């Protein structure tokens, strides 16, 4: 009995220490990235290339998902609002849900699944095939050449993707509510214009997407760098990227929402 308790405490302590170590190493990676960023900004074309991979190539999944999410919001919102005779407010509902929550959160989850995993797998494989070691031996810092451009690409792409998500989602809602169900076109847009506040809704949503972009990109980079140099190690790191990013995004969303909108 005593042994079981001791074992439990030991495991708890080890896992706490591991988490603390991960957070510390992540913070160290962030500061190193900032320090080396000036080197990478000198050749901004590296960052632009990464923006293409993480941002532009994520557009298809973002646009398609956003349109469907918007359509579902339009359908669900209409049937609920109709019960209270306020189906014209569907535009506000769709816009607020997307701009405040679904835009940043779903984009971040999709970003972690598409771009985050790609970053982790790529860096993990570069480590496995000694490309990072080769770079170090050539007196080129992998943080400046590999990590910093990907970090800034994620930071730049994520808010833009979240904005695209919200815009396309609103169009999806418009398609269902106005074009399919027949809610008044003018009411849809005017209610939205009257009730969506630039500072409280749009800017706060944008802040969320910046925080999520930072979190997802840093987690993906960190997991790639610490992945054991084996096939199994890289596959586990990729899975960890999705799991940790998703949980962090949802947790942070709660914290940010409670500060911003309550």
């Amino acid at each position, binding site marked *: 009995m005593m042994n079981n308790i001791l074992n439990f405490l030991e495991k708890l302590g080890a896992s706490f220490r591991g988490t603390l170590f991960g957070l510390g190493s992540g913070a160290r990676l962030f500061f190193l990235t900032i320090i080396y960023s000036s080197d990478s900004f000198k050749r901004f074309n590296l960052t632009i290339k990464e923006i293409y991979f993480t941002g532009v190539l994520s557009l298809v999944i973002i646009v398609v998902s956003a349109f469907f999410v918007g359509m579902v919001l339009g359908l669900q919102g209409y049937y609920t609002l109709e019960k209270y005779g306020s189906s014209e407010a569907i535009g506000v509902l769709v816009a607020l849900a997307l701009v405040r929550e679904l835009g940043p959160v779903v984009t971040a989850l999709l970003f972690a699944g598409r771009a985050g995993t790609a970053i982790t797998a790529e860096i993990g494989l*570069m480590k496995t*095939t000694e*490309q990072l*070691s*080769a770079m*170090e*031996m050539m*007196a*080129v810092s992998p943080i400046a050449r590999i990590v910093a451009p990907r970090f800034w690409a994620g930071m730049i792409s994520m808010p833009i993707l979240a904005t695209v998500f919200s815009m396309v989602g609103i169009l999806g809602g418009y398609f269902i509510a106005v074009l399919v169900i027949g809610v008044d076109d003018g009411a849809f847009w005017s209610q939205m214009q009257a009730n969506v506040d630039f500072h409280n809704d749009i800017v706060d949503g944008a802040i969320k997407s910046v925080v999520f972009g930072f979190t997802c990109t840093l987690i993906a980079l960190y997991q790639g760098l610490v992945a054991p140099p084996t096939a199994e190690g890289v596959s586990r790191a990729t899975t960890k990227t999705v799991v940790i990013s998703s949980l962090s995004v949802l947790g942070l969303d709660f914290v940010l929402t409670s500060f911003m909108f309550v």
Partner: protein
Amino acid sequence: MGENLISINNLSFGYDKELLHKNINMQFNRGKVSAIMGGSGCGKTTILRLIGGQLKPNSGNVIVDGKVVHEQGREELHSIRRKMGMLFQHGALFTDLSVYENVAFPMREHTDLPESVIKDLVLLKLNAVGLRGAHKKMPAELSGGMARRVALARAIALDPDIIMYDEPFAGLDPISMAVICDLIRSLNDALGATSIIVTHDVAETFSFADYIYFLADGGVAAEGSPKQLLTSKLPFVKQFIHSEKDGPVPFHTEAPSYRSDLSL
């Protein structure tokens, strides 16, 4: 022997608490091709990483061109590494860059040379390894031997003073092996460089190396010119050079008795 460019002094190194190297001393002379030989897992590659400053010794030091490697700051370490070229076991080519861009990489990173000069230099280096015609290919399109030759061209891109080779012959066909042997010697002599080869291929290494170190049991088991080592009476050296099954180096790892493992 001539002037030391690299010296390893009373170096001990280990991962965790177990020491891989115990009090090792080695000297690598300017202009010479030296080899570090020994069985798999004896820490040969680790020596190269210690020379390059990627690992820190537990005690002792590595001195490159008068500077203690592990005591240098980032900038100083980079300036030491700029004098080095390293050929990794599997080439370690950047898979997202073409052969041309791989060789151009160190030039673009460390020089402000105009594109026309970089082009001439890249083609010159690729010509030296016989792969000028493959400059447009991607690393995935190359065979193992070709990838290693491209990596060699990249390693010598900035005409380094020190060239380190990690298992340059592993997994190569006899023709590629002969070509690489020839290249190592000729590049060393043409560039006036100092080469260190980590390998366990006896015949090839003995044919062109100037000085050889044998590593075993965490220390230097034997050293000397190929001629001296060929006549060595040391049991370890004899066993290694003549590929003998019986000798001081066991084939089997430590294990309980076979009978007990089979529950007989």
